[in-house]
């Protein structure tokens, strides 16, 4: 390698590593200050803790009802994503394999609906569904997520199914398999990569969603982003506790990401390019 290329590489490395640290620095700040006493935080937010305290975490854990909101987030995300995968893969299979005008138009409506911002229907949405929400707001929220997630998930599955040759369906039906059996036993297992993409994209969206849960959920059923926001609003003066609350909010998804990094990136990439 010649000198010029080597210097180029060094410059790229220097810029890259500086930016890389800048990108995670705010999280570092949160974790470091969560371990400090209130006075130490204001004295110098950048300094490492002089005396490490876990008191902030204990306070934040109880005050933001961490365990309950984590459970709520998990329940809502897991159910919504699983049901979305089932319903949208079936819908996409039907639309991709049925060559008719109505099926083409339905697909076009689904694609077009992706441009509609949630805000455009939020107000009638809430007044219309208020009675339904008051019966069981978690179930209602899961139902809403299935509705809002259908378009993108179906679109992703649709693109994948068109690459699966129809001969496979025909072979299954000649062997006597019903539509359902052929789909679940043969087609669905073949769609693993796109199922991973659909799962990751929807899980990230639902896990982090704020506006819809804010309109739908009550205090007992609030998810992690909601309880974090409310907790911070109440205790932002208690810097140490506020930082501990934020650290708790960030930890679950960060841990998940570190374990499943590759799947995350490739899943997002596959979903984004469609």
């Amino acid at each position, binding site marked *: 390698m010649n000198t010029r290329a080597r210097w180029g590489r060094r410059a*790229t*490395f220097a810029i*890259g*590593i500086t*930016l890389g*640290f800048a*990108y*995670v620095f*705010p*999280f570092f700040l*949160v974790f470091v200050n969560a371990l400090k006493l209130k006075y130490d935080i*204001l004295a*110098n*937010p*950048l300094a490492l803790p002089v005396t490490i305290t876990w008191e902030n975490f204990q306070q934040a854990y109880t005050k933001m009802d961490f365990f309950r909101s984590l459970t709520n987030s998990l329940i809502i995300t897991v159910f919504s994503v699983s049901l979305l995968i089932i*319903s949208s893969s*079936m819908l996409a299979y*039907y*639309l991709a394999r*049925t060559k008719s005008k109505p099926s083409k138009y*339905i697909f076009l409506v689904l694609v077009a*609906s992706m*441009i509609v*911002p949630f*805000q*455009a*229907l*939020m*107000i*009638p*949405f809430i007044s*219309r569904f208020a009675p339904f929400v008051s019966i069981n707001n978690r179930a209602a929220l899961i*139902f809403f997520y*299935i*509705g*809002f997630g259908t*378009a993108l998930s*179906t679109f992703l599955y649709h693109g994948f199914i068109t690459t699966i040759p129809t001969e496979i369906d025909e072979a299954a039906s000649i062997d006597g398999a019903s*539509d*359902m059996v052929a789909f679940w036993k043969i087609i669905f297992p073949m769609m693993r990569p796109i199922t991973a993409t659909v799962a990751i994209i929807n899980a990230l969206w639902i896990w*982090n*969603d*704020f*506006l819809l849960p804010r*309109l739908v959920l009550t205090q007992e059923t609030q998810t992690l*982003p909601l309880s*974090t*926001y409310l907790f911070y609003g109440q205790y932002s003066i208690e*810097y140490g506790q506020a*930082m501990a609350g*934020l650290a708790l909010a*960030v930890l679950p*998804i960060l841990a998940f*990401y570190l374990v499943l990094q590759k799947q*995350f*990136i490739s899943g*997002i*990439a596959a979903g*984004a*390019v469609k």
Partner: protein
Amino acid sequence: MRKARSLKKFMKFAALPLAIFTVVLVVPFVNGFYYTFTDWDGFKVDKFVGFSNYAESFADPKFWTTLRFTGLFVIVSLILVNVVAFGLALIVTSNLRSRNFLRTLFFVPNLVGGVVLGVIWQFIFNSAIVALANKYDWELFKQSWLQDTNKAFWALIIVTVWQSSGYMMIVYITGLVSIETDVLEASQIDGASPLRTLFAIKIPLMAQAFTIALFLTLRGGFMAYDVNVALTEGGPFRTTELISLHIFQDAFGEGNFGTGQSKAVIMFIVVALAALVQVTISKRYEVQR
């Protein structure tokens, strides 16, 4: 016989998902349009009022403030997010040994929801930077940026760029690695400089990635809510309200369901038109392969 079978298949595979989609999305959407022409108060409709909700919306000076603020936010964030994201994509597709590690770092802000990110930066702007500024005497940061409309705008931009550039980076990476290596080798043999290769070969060949990333940032810019509410909450004095937050405040804060919904419909039309124009223009630059 065939018709009965295909109907049965429709009922088994498509009916339920489509019903849910219709109930959750289509019905409120159509309803929302209808309500804007009535005196709807959130519960009942008494009479038609024509376009008066729209007239009232446009007569609201705060709505104009919001529209200007949102327009500026969309343009600036669109440019900066994409420039930064493309730069990041170039770094992590270079021959650095640490490229995968860097890619992991750049993507991290994307994992966390906008509200939590907004609150983290609220601490940084309101407390951390101010404490440091007083300690080391940095005039620019002594007063929190979030107390000043113009600086709060840049605070919003900084957080948005930091949040979204990692995602758009992934889009650009996919574009960059889709370019065939023989094309790049040919340009190298012809003696093209890296900069020339970038502008004359790489960018035109990955124009589709730009179409997608620009579309996503445009839509994201118009729909931004979480960071806005967590970082500035619209303050000082409702001067930093993006359109989403403005609609929310109008309807749920002040109970103006008629104008709130009209503004939401206006937002939908603006987003749809802007996206249509952007995609049409971007598509023109895509090279057919």
